[in-house]
């Protein structure tokens, strides 16, 4: 017990400053953060898939996944849709404002163990940001991986995040990138339909491929079924699970699924692991 007292307090946030804000969609912005203390920032090391508990002082904390790669160290990015009181308050903040950060928290996407393999990303809506952290990481170490395919779907063209960046991805020769929208809008000349409608066009080969997906629960359910019927092994279907995470460290019991804590045992789970969850 005496030893325990010397450990850091897991509920104590560090202070971070917003250094830039970019509009993504009418309700979604990307925030660029840097820890106020330079030494703390230099020591701040995260892996794609991990998240932070972000404090807006006076309103509390909410969990958000990293949207940027640890290979780009000067700052970190989080893309946030305004849905509740805390996120709306955050959207009203600009460069220079301070927030609290606890993290990095949670596990991360398999990375070292998938080197040399083909990679398939499937993102739905606001699910692209956490995958973008991994996508950037793999771009920055591109020779370590085989073919990379990115499939992204959103409700409408307006709801696509990182629009400028998506154009750059589309022009890259070393990846395959396809995007679709559920409902078209004037001026949209691309694919229309749910994400799975891209599968036949993308020429997916399950052998040797590991798939990462992030999106709304309904999308995850359907995509998992599709991948299983295509022949993907359960352990090669990787997703993040979403729950109301409060403490972020497996204490408060908000995010449990069966005996697993999404915040501490996840948020990244393989389909094989998900099948073992009772609830």
């Amino acid at each position, binding site marked *: 017990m005496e030893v325990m007292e010397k450990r*850091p307090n*897991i*509920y104590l946030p560090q202070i971070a400053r917003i250094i830039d804000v970019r509009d993504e969609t009418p309700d979604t912005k990307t925030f660029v953060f840097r820890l106020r203390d330079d030494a703390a920032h230099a020591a701040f090391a995260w892996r794609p898939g991990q998240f932070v508990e972000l404090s807006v002082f006076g*309103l509390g904390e909410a969990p958000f996944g990293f949207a940027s790669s640890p290979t780009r160290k000067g700052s970190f990015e989080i893309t946030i849709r305004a849905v509740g009181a805390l996120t709306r308050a955050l959207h009203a903040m600009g460069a220079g404002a301070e927030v609290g950060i606890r993290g990095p928290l949670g596990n991360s996407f398999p990375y070292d163990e998938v080197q040399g393999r083909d990679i398939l990303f499937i993102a739905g809506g606001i699910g692209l940001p956490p995958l973008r952290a991994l996508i950037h990481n793999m771009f920055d170490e591109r020779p370590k991986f085989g073919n990379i395919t990115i499939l992204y779907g959103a409700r409408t063209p307006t709801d696509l995040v990182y629009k400028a960046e998506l154009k750059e991805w589309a022009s890259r020769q070393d990846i395959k990138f396809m995007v679709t929208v559920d409902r078209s809008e004037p001026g949209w000349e691309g694919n229309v339909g749910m994400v799975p409608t891209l599968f036949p066009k993308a020429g997916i080969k399950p052998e040797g491929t590991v798939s990462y997906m992030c999106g709304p629960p309904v999308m995850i359910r359907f995509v998992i079924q599709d991948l299983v019927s295509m022949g993907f092994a359960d352990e090669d279907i990787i997703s993040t699970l979403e729950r109301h995470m409060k403490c972020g460290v497996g204490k*408060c*019991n908000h995010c*449990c699924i069966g*005996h697993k804590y999404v915040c501490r045992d996840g948020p990244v789970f393989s389909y094989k692991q998900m099948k073992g969850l009772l609830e």
Partner: protein
Amino acid sequence: MSRALRLDKGRLREWVAALQKSATVIAPVPLHGADVAFQPIKSADEITLEYDNPQDSPKRFLFPQSEDLLRYHRNGGYQVEPTYDEEKRVIFGIRCCDVSAIRFFDLTLGVEDLPDAYYARRRANTGLVAFACNAPCKECFCVCANTGPSLPSGGGYDIQLTDLGGAYLLVEVDTPKGEELVAAAPQLFSPASADDLAQRDALDQAAEKRFPRDPRLYFSASSRKVSVDAVEEELWRRMAQWCVTCGGCTNICPTCYCFNVTDAQMNGAGVRTRRWDSCQFPGLTREASGHNPRPEQLHRLRRRIFHKISYQYVARDGMQGCVGCGRCVRVCPGIRLGIPEVGEAIRRAEWK
């Protein structure tokens, strides 16, 4: 490291008074009427040693219903300071089921790799003087949970007292902290005899026999069914119809520790506070989008029982989450959703 002493009952007050010099003593105190509650005492005269285990367990002295985690203010930028409770306490007369519940907290909230600094500090500053039961309370089933009526060495107490029936208390000292508590008034204690220990074992066996012969709970059967998802959803639904979502079962449960955290702020200064939450409330799992992975009360009842008795949690936490204190039996206004009743319904696969 157990060592056995004896203490004259007539001099118990002198010992408690000596403990009060360096710590707040929490002890069972009679209230108006027949109730007894664990309270900080001013005088050793307030203590009773004739009590059924109070409906409020002593968990709130280690994990308060509401506690501040940190304060912050703006001075240029934000400054954040943790708020720690450094008070030294002795919980005197805690029953063995509740000692076991604190051991459960040590294994979960206080785990070594990610300790909860607030719990860990209070725990390090709190001595546990247990009082073994010589008779069961009406609803308890510690014999079924292996948490009583007395505990072996290593059970989590610093000192365990047993009323030997005559003029003496047996005093088993089990930890360095327990030795410190004895050292507050060492002249009061003398070595226990072999007869004292034999007497204790006899009392313990007699107490075990006084539990109902047919305890309504068989953890082995209900735990197995809960762990392999072999309970029909319809059974959960029928049981959950008796739940009024009061959260009483989780509030009085000595092993429940769900919590929520909120901020309050004025003029750029604020406080972050945590309060007990409950898996029986829909808000525990409701997400910002409005989606709720446990939308109905049957899911929340299933959750509570799964966390208490599933093999998965026993394996994860190192012990079962139900210590058999029986409080949920007494508190449930639907009368029927205590762990024994639910366990029995699961075992029989029927709900009458």
